């Protein structure tokens, strides 16, 4: 899409393709080619791994409405820095992305920024209110070509409305991405319900509130024969339900966030709201279960739920703090730490969960392609030997609310190519 900016041809030299043997990857005219083009720029990939450009199914870019937290420009720069070439911009903006006008605005801002393909997610219901369907067809037919619909931040808790949404999006190959949270079971909820919530006096967010909705929705997906995608699944029970649904052949996919792969509720003991997120950080056994689910493919994708917030939204009491964490610039490192270093996934598996499958779910033909000639040249070159201490001030995001601050994480993005054009080179975001 941003091929106007390609300019150069590239040779990625000596990188391990999908973590396999070192080889060459060749880019010309914005697409992959079979041999080194004349006069191409050479990027030294020695010791690095080259993967297809990462695709995020769950990103909050905040624009329009909360440009103090993030803009499409800053958010997509963060995405590029994290190795992403496509992001799905969630609908809970202000105004809500529930009309063709708003989704086209976000899509256009993405094109203008040029750091990432921005695919807007359309709201399922008008104003995310869960009362009546938004004009899903108009958003699908718009220039933004919306295929993923979600009220994320809110659950489509009305079973009849959820059923109709699932049915309706079949007309244009859409998918409903559900934020699974039974609202009555989570009124005022502050953290995972368990022994710690009782001790800290923070109102619990019980696992069952997530699992009950997922159980209902997988049955609705089967009944309507329409695609359901489960957002940010966080509990061992949820993994079991999705595993069961898939074993029955139901059209269900699921995602897990990097923070749910690495962090546990114990961090909340100090009441620091940087750890406040929805769904909440869970127990160590839940972390183990979501890792296993991602490894065996029950969970299809890692999605960041990148949720920027201004400083004042986190520099306050736990109860009044906003929910959400940054994720784009640390996702690949967290996956390396939790899945690759543990032997649960190899790099080809990482490419599958962070690029191939999310691209397929989102209907992105130009992403998640494994370097075949003629395909759009979207890739990320990562140095797995590198490590870095996460510094909030060093992030591209406009916000600073990373739960990984001060943590030493493996891996560093060396280069990101979007339609054959570098958005990151030598580990630095390319100015344009």
């Amino acid at each position, binding site marked *: 899409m941003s091929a106007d900016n390609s300019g150069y041809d590239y040779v990625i030299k000596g990188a391990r393709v999908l973590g396999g043997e070192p080889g060459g990857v060749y880019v010309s005219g914005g697409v992959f080619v079979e041999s080194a083009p004349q006069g191409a720029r050479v990027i030294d990939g020695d010791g690095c791994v080259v993967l297809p450009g990462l695709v995020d199914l769950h990103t909050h870019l905040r624009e329009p409405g909360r440009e103090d937290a993030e803009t499409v420009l800053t958010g997509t720069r963060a995405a590029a820095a994290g190795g992403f070439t496509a992001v799905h911009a969630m609908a809970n903006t202000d105004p809500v992305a529930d009309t063709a006008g708003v989704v086209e605005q976000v899509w256009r801002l993405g094109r203008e920024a040029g750091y990432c393909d921005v695919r807007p997610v359309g709201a399922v219901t008008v104003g995310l209110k869960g009362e009546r369907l938004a004009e899903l067809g108009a958003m699908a037919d718009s220039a933004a070509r919306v295929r993923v619909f979600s009220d994320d931040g809110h659950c489509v808790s009305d079973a009849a409305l959820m059923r109709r949404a699932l049915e309706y999006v079949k007309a244009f190959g859409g998918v409903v991405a559900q934020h699974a949270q039974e609202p009555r079971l989570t009124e005022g909820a502050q953290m995972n*319900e*368990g022994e710690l*919530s009782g*001790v800290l*006096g*923070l109102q619990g967010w019980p696992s069952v509130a997530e699992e009950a909705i997922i159980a209902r929705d997988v049955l609705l997906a089967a009944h309507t024969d329409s695609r359901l995608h489960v957002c940010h699944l966080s509990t061992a029970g949820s993994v079991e339900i999705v595993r069961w649904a898939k074993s029955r052949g139901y059209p269900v996919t699921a995602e897990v966030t990097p923070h749910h792969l690495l962090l546990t509720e114990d961090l909340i003991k100090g009441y620091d709201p940087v750890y406040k997120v929805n769904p909440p950080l869970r127990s160590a056994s839940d972390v183990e279960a979501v890792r296993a689910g991602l490894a065996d493919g029950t969970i299809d994708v890692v999605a960041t739920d990148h949720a920027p917030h201004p400083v004042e939204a986190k*520099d306050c009491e736990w*109860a009044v703090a906003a929910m959400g964490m940054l994720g784009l610039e640390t996702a690949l490192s967290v996956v390396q730490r939790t899945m690759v270093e543990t032997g649960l996934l190899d790099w080809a598996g990482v490419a599958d969960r962070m690029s191939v499958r999310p691209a397929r779910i989102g209907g992105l033909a130009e992403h998640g392609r494994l370097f075949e000639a003629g395909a759009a040249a979207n890739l990320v070159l990562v140095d797995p030997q590198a490590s870095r201490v996460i510094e909030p001030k060093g992030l591209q995001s406009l916000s600073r609310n990373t739960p990984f601050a001060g943590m030493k994480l493996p891996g560093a993005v060396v280069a990101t190519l979007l339609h054959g054009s570098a958005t990151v080179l030598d580990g630095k975001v390319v100015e344009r």
Partner: protein
Amino acid sequence: MANRHLLSTADLSVDDANLILDTAEELARVADRAIKKLPTLRGRTVVNLFFEDSTRTRISFETAAKRLSADVINFSAKGSSVSKGESLKDTALTLEAMGADAVVVRHWASGGAYRLANAGWIRSSVVNAGDGTHEHPTQALLDAFTLRRRLGSVAGRRIAIVGDVLHSRVARSNVHLLATLGAEVTLVAPPTLLPLGVDGWPCAHSYDLDPVLPKCDAVMMLRVQRERMSQAFFPTEREYSRRYGLHAARMAMLPEHAVVMHPGPMNRGLEISAEVADSVRSTITEQVANGVSVRMAVLYLLLGGAESAIGNDEKGSAR
């Protein structure tokens, strides 16, 4: 005392707890004097920062600080920082600029005091005067002080805490402190009002009050808010009162020496009958008086020196 703040009774060792209680005992004697004032904290400033109304707790802390000759500033910051008014951070920075030595904070949010003490906004000592449904450490200390005076000791005593444990900061602080002091605590409540994971707490629990009473040395009744009923925690006030209220017939099941406690304010007729509240077993007004001594001890130990609380000069070196 090793701690610079008093945020949770879980942070207190047996020695810390006993030091506070012993100091409170010493300071209680001041109340019997004609002139009830000591010069100990002269020139120090104690701020009572209340984000939630609590006249009893504020007055108790104010009296305690004044008896130690501290300057007291009452700062009422009602309303949440989301709706209107200053954020906790800006309030804290203001107090820091004014040079508060100790901040006594009551906050409607769990962790409010913890955040104030640890977010890097202020350097003063922080005393938690109740944070949401988390803790109320000075209440637990005054309860332990009252138990010690009435029963001679806390170690080995059997104490029932009855009522809305789920929403009670008093219960949480008491469970930690009484366990540390060696008491056997049993929480009694309907299952809806016990937190998930209570099995891991250092106490027993029961859904039934009657079998617990004959073995109790003390029974501590918790306030039950009437609005819990509408959230389906229990069906009706009458049913709650029948099953978990302490009335005369139930009180008769207690051993001769057992005492009845309540942190106040009471709902007479709901968790406790008037007859019980006004009986000789009741320690309720005593608890209020003891609150001042215990809070004097806490402020003295956090701000004062290591010497005896009485007859000490005004020199403090805790900071």
